[in-house]
């Protein structure tokens, strides 16, 4: 696999990965902003507002019709959260032109569409059109409320929210329902302009595109024409945003949070802070530690909580690369939560005490290896890994990660495990007879 070619122009960057074996070309435009309480909701609405129309395609149905005409281009916009950063994205994928008769010029149109959405959304002197704003405020309210409906995801979000309470990284990705009333076309337009003028811009292109640097430079030139005012040499090197840092350890008591709802199954999620971020030399050991604990079906959690104790259908853990937060997720019978808690903490303790078999080390290394090698066939994941590297202050290639994981020894995993600090025990359980509200202590 070749690497990304990156061309920088001030705060703009174009990253191109030429992969001739794919039949799809992907374009992703990403704008990076710090997460802030005052603007979190307005920024979160923007990518959805962009889809309501552009200068050339003034309504949402015109935008979608255009995408369908481009052989059903996959078109999407969205808001992401990486550590304490907000990431606004527009994304277009189109079939490679050689696989379809009569499809030439498809890719150029796709690039234009992705850029139009971000740099030329429909607007007037009053900012975003009132009709667009009304639609998107209504949809955004429902988007925020819908998180409640998927209980596995809801419990995870709640746990992370509590682990990160008080930090920018703890602000909700989609913002707050109560902010929506204060947003109008003009206000949103001023947030949009501020984002365009200050955000770092990363444009990713992956697929069967030419490999030469000239092609990438021409693309970068095309992108920079969309940011005529501020993309010049003036802000070159003016400020480089610091890398996203892992959440530091926090002293004090473990937070115990219980929410009660009308559910059939309880969700017991445990959040740990580790203080190990993506740029840390200990990151590969932390990857291994999470893998031995709960990343795979051979891991301690799956084997002990599910297979041996028959307590859960799912029992796993995941590591957030940028914040260094590890979350254990389980779905269990409500009245067995104490037993589940004991077994989970026994597994963490076993890791910290060095109770790790050679097999567990070997299986986890092989599984991580397989996971990373598979990314090579997934263009969007390759872009994501590169992007996380940029944000985290250390771009790691797949061979690099694999070599680092391979070098991790048992003692390194134990040291990483000893950095796991239980921060929050979150339990979503059945409704009490007396209706309780969110946030009661266990």
């Amino acid at each position, binding site marked *: 696999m070749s690497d990304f070619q990156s061309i920088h122009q001030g705060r703009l960057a174009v990253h191109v990965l030429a992969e001739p074996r794919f039949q799809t070309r992907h374009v992703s435009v990403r704008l990076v902003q710090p997460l802030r309480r005052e603007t979190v909701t307005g920024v979160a609405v923007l990518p959805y507002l962009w889809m309501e129309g552009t200068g050339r395609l003034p309504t949402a149905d015109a935008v979608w019709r255009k995408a369908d005409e481009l052989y059903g281009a996959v078109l999407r916009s969205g808001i992401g959260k990486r550590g304490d950063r907000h990431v606004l994205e527009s994304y277009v994928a189109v079939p490679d032109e050689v*696989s379809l008769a009569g499809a030439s010029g498809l890719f150029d149109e796709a690039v234009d569409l992705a850029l139009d959405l971000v740099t030329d959304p429909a607007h007037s002197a009053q900012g975003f059109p009132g009709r667009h704003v009304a639609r998107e405020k209504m949809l955004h309210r429902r988007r925020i409320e819908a998180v409640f409906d998927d209980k596995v995801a809801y419990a995870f979000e709640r746990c992370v929210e509590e682990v990160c309470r008080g930090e920018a990284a703890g602000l909700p990705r989609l913002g707050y329902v109560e902010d929506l009333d204060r947003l109008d076309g003009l206000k949103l337009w001023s947030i949009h302009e501020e984002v365009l003028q200050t955000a770092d811009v990363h444009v990713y292109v992956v697929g069967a595109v030419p490999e030469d640097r000239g092609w990438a430079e021409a693309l970068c030139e095309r992108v920079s024409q969309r940011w005529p005012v501020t993309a010049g040499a003036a802000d070159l090197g003016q400020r480089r945003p610091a890398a996203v840092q892992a959440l530091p350890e926090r002293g004090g008591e473990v937070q115990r949070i219980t929410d009660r709802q009308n559910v059939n*199954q309880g969700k017991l999620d445990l959040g740990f802070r580790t203080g190990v971020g993506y740029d840390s030399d200990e990151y590969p050991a932390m990857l291994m530690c999470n893998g031995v604990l709960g990343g795979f079906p051979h891991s301690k959690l799956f084997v002990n909580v599910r297979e041996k104790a028959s307590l859960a259908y799912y029992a796993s853990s995941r590591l957030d690369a940028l914040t260094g937060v590890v979350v254990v997720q389980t779905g269990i019978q409500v009245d067995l939560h104490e037993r589940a808690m004991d077994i989970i903490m026994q597994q963490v303790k076993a890791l910290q005490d060095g109770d790790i078999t050679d097999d567990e080390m070997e299986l986890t290394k092989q599984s991580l290896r397989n996971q990373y090698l598979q990314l090579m066939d997934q263009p969007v994941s390759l872009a994501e890994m590169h992007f996380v590297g940029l944000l985290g202050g250390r771009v790691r290639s797949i061979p690099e990660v694999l070599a680092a994981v391979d070098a991790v020894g048992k003692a390194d995993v134990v040291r990483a495990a000893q950095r796991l600090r239980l921060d929050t025990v979150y339990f979503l359980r059945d409704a009490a007879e007396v209706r309780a509200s969110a946030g009661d202590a266990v």
Partner: protein
Amino acid sequence: MQEMRYDQLRQMVCRERLNNGLEVFLLPKPGFQQVFAAFTTRYGSIDRTFRAGPDEDFTTVPDGIAHFLEHKMFESEDGDVFATFAKQGASANAFTTFDQTTYLFSCTGEVAANTETLLDFVQTPYVTDENVEKEKGIIDQEIRMYDDNPDWRSYFGLLKALYAHHPVRIDIAGTVESIQRIDKDLLHRCYRTFYHPGNMIFVAAGGFDADQLLEVIRANQAKKSFGPAPDIERKWPDEPAGAASPRTEASLSVSQPRCLIGWKDRKAGLKGRPLMEQELLTGVILDALFGRSSPLYHALIDEGLIDQQFSWEYEVTPSYGHSLVGGNTPQPDALVERVEEELARAASNGIGEEAFERSRRKALGRFVTSLDSPSHVTRSFTSYRLKEADWLATGEVLESLTLEAANERLREHFSSSQRAVSIVWPK
């Protein structure tokens, strides 16, 4: 070995039927790191009443047994199957649907060893009274997890309303009660009936050499003996043509109501190319009427009746078929009314040429881009193969569809006698 080439798609398929009856399809993708392989039996949750070989009478087995068996197959006498795969750099999984059970792995090396592991573990059942009991707790939690899921609940609510007797109305995992009736002997009986190589197919896609991989499979199968394939006879209850009941409701801990509107197909019983034609044609119609480029979609958003989760689906197999549209809505009844209005309008005016072409082209583009994913290729190829159809002919079939046929199908499919509505209300 038979080789089939699809030049414009840059895809080749090697096919062979082994002496024991197993059908093998290999789809090499040069340059890919990943190999995705699936070993599938034509056995799913709807196969609940059957007889095989010498049986005189039909047997009806407890609901959820195909899925239970899927869980149990990962048990082996000499240790954990997941660990064996992990050691060989692969990740393994399995799933059960209405009409198939599939065991799969995904790897980036040791393709031969992983293929042998896959074939061996599925062909060596290890079921004990003890491990059957243990599994009940796990599946119990799996069922309860789905019970809390509004998508799942609204979907099965709809199937129960559409079908009076057909077992597609029964939850794939069964119920907390039905799984208690499952035991070792019943599992063995289902295994003997449905896991003969003659009832199974093996499909793989990704970066491998087809000749070498085929040789591995041939040699592995030649070492085992299976006896003659049992003659399986499935029994389907008589199912009325129309929807069983017009409406079903449930309540759940959700923020807003969810509403699905479905139409049961009168025209079931197809397979092969005609099934594919019906499926793709119906999909193009649904996309033209309800997709994101349709006027209705944007009108419903403006009216506050839907959000971006609104979507459509069409599923057809040789024994049943249905379409559905829906999603989150604050006013289910208003949504149903608007959808009915649109269908009445479409039935009298027909779908326009432009909308038809746009949706057809979209389906074509999506098909081509999906070829980049070995997992998608393997799963789609398998499920079409079980219906005796060729997934790689999707482009060709889409090209052959006509607007005239679409409008005829539209009028035939969306009739009110075939319709049911499923609503999940916030508790």
